[in-house]
């Protein structure tokens, strides 16, 4: 009886909330939820992944209070929610930059967006066409299910398809591993994953006027181009339930967690 009553209280109480969605944001939300529960002992926050699409689906079915997305909500998702009478509110919680990486022995340091597009769509096949040594280019991509795959395709390839038969790796770690041991390799990973075993490429989105190194500072001052926002979405009608958590993530303390987990804080 007591347990049931407690359960009811925790389900209906404003302090219980669920977060569901993007796997990219999982480390961030988990850390934030832990800290948030330390400050508010009465609150319970459960965080689950599954992918950005899963988050919106859960919001639609009412099985989550907050959906975490590593991309902007899609138009048909928005219209589905609208049809159900749910108006969503969007909060940008952090930014995530993608770095393009090559083998450390590669002489190439600068690449333009057009060159990257050529490389990943299979038009540019040899490093000498991009100012490097005479060596075949081996582009590595993430698997199609990844939000990172979609974002890179959108931002760098301008929605064109990757070349047929691109190497696709199941995880970011595998990309780092492969690029670090393959001389002709090129791949893309989240900024937080950069290490000394691979070399980050400086990128230009404006012809070849200015090449920018991927770094937190450059992502913050908006000179580095391959940056995506990470969002929380929630039902505007149920704002009271999530207000405290949203307030926490946007606070100085919350934004410190953002930086600690390798993302870029919002100003």
């Amino acid at each position, binding site marked *: 009886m007591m347990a049931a009553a407690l359960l009811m209280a925790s389900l209906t109480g404003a302090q219980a909330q669920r977060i569901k969605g993007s796997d990219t944001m999982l480390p961030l939300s988990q850390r934030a939820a832990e800290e948030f529960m330390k400050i508010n002992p009465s609150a319970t926050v459960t965080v689950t992944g599954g992918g950005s699409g899963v988050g919106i689906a859960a919001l639609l079915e009412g099985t989550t209070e907050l959906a975490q997305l590593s991309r902007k909500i899609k138009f048909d998702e928005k219209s589905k929610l609208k049809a159900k009478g749910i108006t969503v509110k969007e909060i940008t919680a952090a930014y995530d930059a993608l770095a393009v990486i090559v083998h450390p022995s590669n002489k190439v340091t600068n690449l333009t967006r057009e060159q990257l597009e050529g490389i990943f769509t299979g038009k540019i096949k040899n490093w000498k066409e991009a100012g490097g040594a005479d060596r075949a280019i081996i582009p590595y991509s993430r698997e199609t299910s990844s939000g990172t795959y979609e974002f890179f395709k959108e931002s760098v390839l301008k929605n064109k398809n*990757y070349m047929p038969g691109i190497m696709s790796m199941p995880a970011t770690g*595998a990309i780092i591993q492969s690029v670090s041991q393959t001389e002709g390799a090129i791949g893309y990973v989240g900024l937080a994953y950069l290490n000394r075993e691979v070399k980050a490429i400086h990128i230009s989105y404006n012809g070849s006027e200015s090449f920018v190194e991927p770094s937190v500072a450059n992502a913050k001052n908006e000179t580095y181009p391959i940056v995506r926002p990470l969002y929380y979405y929630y039902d505007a009608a149920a704002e009271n339930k999530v207000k405290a958590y949203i307030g926490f993530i946007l606070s100085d303390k919350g934004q410190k967690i953002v930086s600690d987990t390798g993302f870029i804080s919002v100003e």
Partner: protein
Amino acid sequence: MKRLRRIAERLAEAALTLSGSIASLAILLIIVFLFKEGLGLFGSSAVEKGYALCVHSSNPVEQLAPQQVKQIFDRELTLWSEAGGSGGEIVTFRFDELFALYSEEELGESYELIPQRLGEVIARTPGIIAFVPEEYLPYHNREVKALPAAKISPAAFFGGREWLPTATPAPQFGVLPLIMGTVWVSLFAILIALPLGLGVAIYMSELAGARTRKLLKPTIELLAGIPSVVYGFFGLAVLAPLIRQTLRLPVGETAFAGSLILAIMALPTIITIAEDAMRRTPLAMREASLALGATPWQTIYRVIVPYASSGIMAAVVLGTGRAIGETMAVLMVTGNAAVMPHSLFQPVRTIPATIAAELGEAPAGGAHYQSLFLLGCILFIITMLISASAECIASRNPGKEI
């Protein structure tokens, strides 16, 4: 008392029959489910569900193949004359671009003005091909012509050479590279594992001393207990760079790396089963052979191996089954590039790896989801063919008559 025992026996019989039929039924249901989900792919639209392609009404194009749609949106076809129309440059238009052209107010509060705005855009661009949600199609606009959506055909599925299941607007489901990749990797895995496995099995059952066998057998059985992800790690971090350096290849994640890992993984199965089969050769048979003056070696290959041939066949089938269905290790070491394999030293993509990597995010019931189920069906048919042919070979083997 006697009656009680009879009732108990009946009950046991009934229970066994029941469990047998439940198992068969479960297998049957799984197969039916697999094929039902998979075959739904044919007949579904080649353009993403809920979306349509439309062009300006002055455009003579009536139908575009999925391949053409993909090339147009990849800007590989840039002139209508190349795509079956006449002259003019192709202007691609994705629905999202509408939001860059018009403000939220111009689109209406609940987007009721979208069809009208779409009509405007299409009317003023004769070379346009627009990819838009069906519900916002400006049906009444006379300057807009919706192209009928092509269906995904079995020919395009089984004969296609491009696997781009998430491409918009026209996903490409060509499974030929995946089937070839699977067959390629498993074939070489078995070619490597079979002589090695049989060699070890013969050594262990016939030549090794009791102490060596006692040490060797658990060690080999331990190989089967290593999780496949660990094999994958080993392959990615050790085998792939090794192969790349020694063979001077541009890339180490190749079909060969996959075959090697699979061979190592299939070895314990092959060795254990083949060795058991050989050791089951009756002592009388061996002694008779030796008594006739045959050397130990002659006894092995004229008596023991033929006697154990059906067991050896079972070892091969189970080993092959392990190789073909293996997912995680292959996913990590073969590079997963969906290209037709021409050599052993290039990346390939296998069916199990594709299913494992993509099923998680494929929207349930969509074309991508169905195509993955169909891949499962293909895998099932391949393994069925292999075990059937192995049984056929085993039953024709004259060795059984010894």
